């Protein structure tokens, strides 16, 4: 697979296939059922009838990380939870995307100064694609984030992303060791 991944993205027809796959993928992003704190309630409101995330094909929350493409991190991540969030992310299959929802996961939010236990920004543990600030973000804001992610997913070349993810992984392991 390694050779394929490296060679394929540069060939023309593959790019066309990539575009077609990208269109399909962006229309069926499956998020993970995952709620941490207050922001999760707003996330539930987005799934519900009034805002109806299903219009964009992202309204089928999966209960397991292995079936989902998108993890929305809705709520404060503290030291005890950080380990779990990282583990959930690791269990997801590539290509996977992350939306950081709320001020807490974007950079600490209300707990930035005195919160001795909170992780100030989830990007410190997992790579984030879209940041949605707000405390909590309005449902419209989260939907905007998901629409932005759709654009990104559509543009993403599957094979290219895999290669890049591999490089990122290598870099991270190198930095860690």
């Amino acid at each position: 697979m390694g050779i394929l991944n490296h060679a394929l993205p540069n060939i023309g027809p593959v790019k066309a296939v990539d575009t077609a796959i990208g269109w399909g993928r962006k229309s069926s992003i499956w998020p993970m059922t995952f709620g941490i704190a207050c922001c999760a309630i707003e996330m539930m409101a987005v799934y519900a009838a009034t805002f109806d995330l299903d219009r964009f094909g992202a309204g089928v929350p999966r209960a397991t990380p292995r079936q989902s493409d998108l993890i929305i991190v809705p709520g404060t991540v503290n030291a005890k939870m950080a380990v779990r969030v990282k583990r959930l992310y690791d269990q997801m299959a590539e290509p996977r995307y992350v939306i950081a929802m709320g001020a807490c996961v974007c950079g600490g939010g209300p707990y930035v100064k005195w919160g001795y236990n909170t992780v100030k920004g989830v990007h410190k543990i997992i790579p984030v694609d879209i940041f949605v600030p707000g405390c909590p973000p309005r449902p419209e804001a989260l939907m905007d984030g998901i629409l932005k992610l759709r654009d990104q997913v559509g543009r993403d070349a599957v094979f290219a992303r895999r290669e890049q993810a591999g490089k990122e992984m290598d870099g991270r392991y190198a930095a860690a060791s």
Partner: protein
Amino acid sequence: MYAVEEKNDVFTEELKLNLGPQHPSTHGVLRVELKMDGEIITASRCDIGYLHRCAEKIGENVTYLQFTPYTDRMDYLASMNNNLAWSLAVEKLIDVEAPERAQWIRVIVAELNRIASHLIAFGTYGIDIGANTPFFYAFRERESIMALLERPSGARMLYNYIRPGGVGHDVDDQWLADVLAFCDEFERRWKEYNTLLTNSHIFIKRTANIGVIPKDVALAYGCTGPVLRGSGVKWDLRRDVPYLKPYDELEFDVPVGEGTHGSLGDCWDRYWVRMREMMESIRIIRQACPRVPDGPFMDKKTSGMYKTPLKPKPGEAYVRCENPRGELGFYVVSEGGTSPIRCRTRAPSFCNLAVLDVLLPGTMIADGVAIIGSLDIVLGEVDR
């Protein structure tokens, strides 16, 4: 309890099962360590702390007014009620009473928020049991409440509206009229819920006689709110210790569990208490709306707190309020500075959760999910 009949001559290997912390039916980030014998739970242990956000420590560092938004974020489903309890505690400390108008507005917004909170309990409980539809119905009405509460407070969920000495902004007559219109609308919807879930045969099968909390156990574990009332104890702070003057003058019942489907204090009783409480809240709002008097909405003494922080005299205050989940208490100690030196929270969810380890052993795992859902805990409040 739903006795599971099994001969004890065949044993399965003991299995340790980890429920959570990202499990969708634990209502947040609760982790329960279960020991299983086949499908039957033999032992359970709750592991909390996945949402500890240092609220009490923060309270010791910020001013009294600045702590109000943090109380929002403890029980984020009932922000108004949390604001109310904190404001009352601070008011007791500085010896101020909110003006009449503010008190009536407080009652209305607190009861609206109670309905919104119970709606979430109703909707997510449906999902726990396996019925997805109620969730969408519940959120439709919840959105109406959000829209109503957004108008005076400016926020959808975490309002920071009730503040020490009064409320943040005034409401107008149009708002009160709209609240009354919502009450009429909601009454019709509520009947719909009952045909949808309450009287559904499958739902009753899944919840009746499951997770029975006897009266004495509920009292011994310090359960409050619908969990206690579900076991047949008629205890509601709004009625017994009216912490706002209007509650004294309003008429409302305190619904308690009656053991409609066999045993008193089962999941169905707790659920049904919540459903009836929504209607009682509607009744309170109906009476309160026409009675909101004219006048100031913020006390003169505290209206300067935005510029110069409050400095209560040394002393302590403890105030408890009836939250949707039970009895919320704030204990504040002042030494004369701009921030308290101790600010302790008595969280209802935390005490209600304690009873879980008694309920789970002996039940099937699918019933375990029903039991956790019926306690209606909010992890933000358990861990603070």
